């Protein structure tokens, strides 16, 4: 785990992910200061929530993809050949780190958005904001795991990013609109969890596709297990170039 932390400190991608989220937060603050929070907290959902989700995917892919992209997997495995341990140690560093980063950015943003919205006579309800943070925590960790899984499945940085984005923003959305199987969409499951946490309607997909939170959590976990399992098998069984 120490070496994973060293990589995060030494390499630019994690920094760029953090900088990108911070920059979009500043854009959101500027928009809030000019126009207010928006009808349904759009300002922080779009300036923190969505960018943080994409950053989580990129970081998830990077955790494993960097070793393939830089050709360093052979060096990593000739330092310690235990592949399952490598798999677990990367996740053991990545998951808490993304959770911590999500909490931090929401904590930093709260007073700033409050100040920016104040000029429009708006305020942020703490309970609503907490729900948004909790929903973001779930989504970001899930998206990180999807990114990590596709980096392993494709054994590639570029392939990992491409397939993770295709899965999340095309296949999963497409599945949400297919009758009879729509309730098994990964994105729809995450939307159901989000809805359960935040207690509002919204979401997407077919109208009848709403699952109870327990079922939605099971579907999301099933997808994650399937993808991570496939990635782990690829890492465990394939020859390393």
């Amino acid at each position: 785990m120490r070496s994973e932390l060293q990589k995060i400190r030494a390499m630019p991608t994690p920094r760029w992910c953090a900088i990108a989220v911070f920059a979009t937060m500043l854009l959101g603050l500027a928009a809030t200061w000019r126009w207010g929070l928006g009808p349904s907290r759009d300002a922080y959902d779009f300036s923190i929530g969505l960018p943080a989700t994409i950053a989580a995917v990129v970081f998830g892919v990077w955790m494993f993809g960097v070793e393939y992209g830089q050709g360093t997997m052979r060096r990593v495995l000739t330092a310690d050949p235990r592949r399952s341990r490598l798999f677990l140690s990367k996740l053991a560093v990545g998951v808490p780190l993304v959770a911590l980063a999500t909490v931090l950015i929401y904590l930093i943003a709260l007073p700033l958005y409050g100040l920016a919205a104040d000029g429009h006579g708006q305020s942020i309800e703490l309970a609503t904001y907490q729900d948004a943070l909790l929903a973001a925590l779930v989504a970001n960790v899930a998206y990180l795991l999807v990114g990590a899984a596709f980096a392993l499945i494709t054994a590639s940085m570029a392939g990992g990013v491409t397939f993770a984005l295709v899965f999340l923003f095309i296949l999963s959305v497409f599945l949400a609109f297919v009758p009879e199987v729509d309730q098994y969409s990964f994105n729809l499951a995450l939307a159901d969890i989000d809805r359960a946490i935040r207690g509002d309607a919204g979401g997407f997909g077919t109208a009848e596709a709403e699952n109870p939170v327990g079922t939605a959590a099971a579907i999301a976990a099933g997808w994650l297990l399937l993808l991570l399992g496939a990635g782990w098998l690829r890492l465990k069984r394939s020859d390393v170039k």
Partner: protein
Amino acid sequence: MSGTTLAVFDGVSKSFGRNVALRGLSFEVAEGAVCGLLGPNGSGKTTAIRILLGLGRADAGSAGLLGVPVGGTGFASAVRQTGSLIEGPALYERATARQNMKIQAAARDIRRPAAEIDSLLELVDLRGRADSKAGGFSMGMKQRLGLAMALLGSPRLVILDEPTNGLDPSGIVEIRKLIARLPESGVSVLVSSHLLSEVELMCDRVTIINRGEMVADGTIAEVLSTATGEDSFIVGVPSEESDRATRALTGLGLTVSPRGDGALNVSGPVTDGSQISCVLAGEGIYVSRLQSDSPDLERVFLDLTGDDDEV
């Protein structure tokens, strides 16, 4: 050599689809030795090394590292006592040389590595560039950094795959000297290379593989002794004395034939050039050039692998 075997291949076979990379490869690396692994491109050297380090799986046969079967209990510990440089240095290009070393030290569970990192960077002449990004290094500098990373944690065995790739002549000499010195500090070496003269200079033993099979194995002298042909010399004499010199040397039972460059090829039961020079001087013929043309590793390699194009 202490006689302990650090690496062993026992009938290892490996195929990639229809392409057979290794066919029942068997050889050993003894402790305290610098062993050379030679073979033409595509002969299976790197595949063998990958299998030894657990990066690839053998289809048949077995390999062992530091007395532990590859993938068996204790293999992780054996790998941690083995440094390696396989097909290029494999660096994090956006990290500095020192950061690369720190990452490797952490991966190998080395505590407080700062002093060792400094001394290894000094050893490979990169101390002054320790805080420069590896991506900006020349191929030679990257290779030296890779070598320093392979030496982290005082390994018992260092496995180097083409370590002089990309190095200039002075870099090659430095790396060769460095590798040759490693056994003094208790490090054994398995080095694969296609630079036969380098291997001849730095290795105690050599294993030659061709098309995935071992074709020769032993000390350099043992492998050289398998070469066909007798000891021979190139002898330069004044052109007007060429016939007389030929008669004098033929009289000793040597075989003499003219070379295209005016010198003579002399072969036969003679092991020391001074015998030739002495005979010719006795005839009043003074030698302008006397050069051994005995079999070297390159000739043996070409004989055994039957491929003139690969060297």
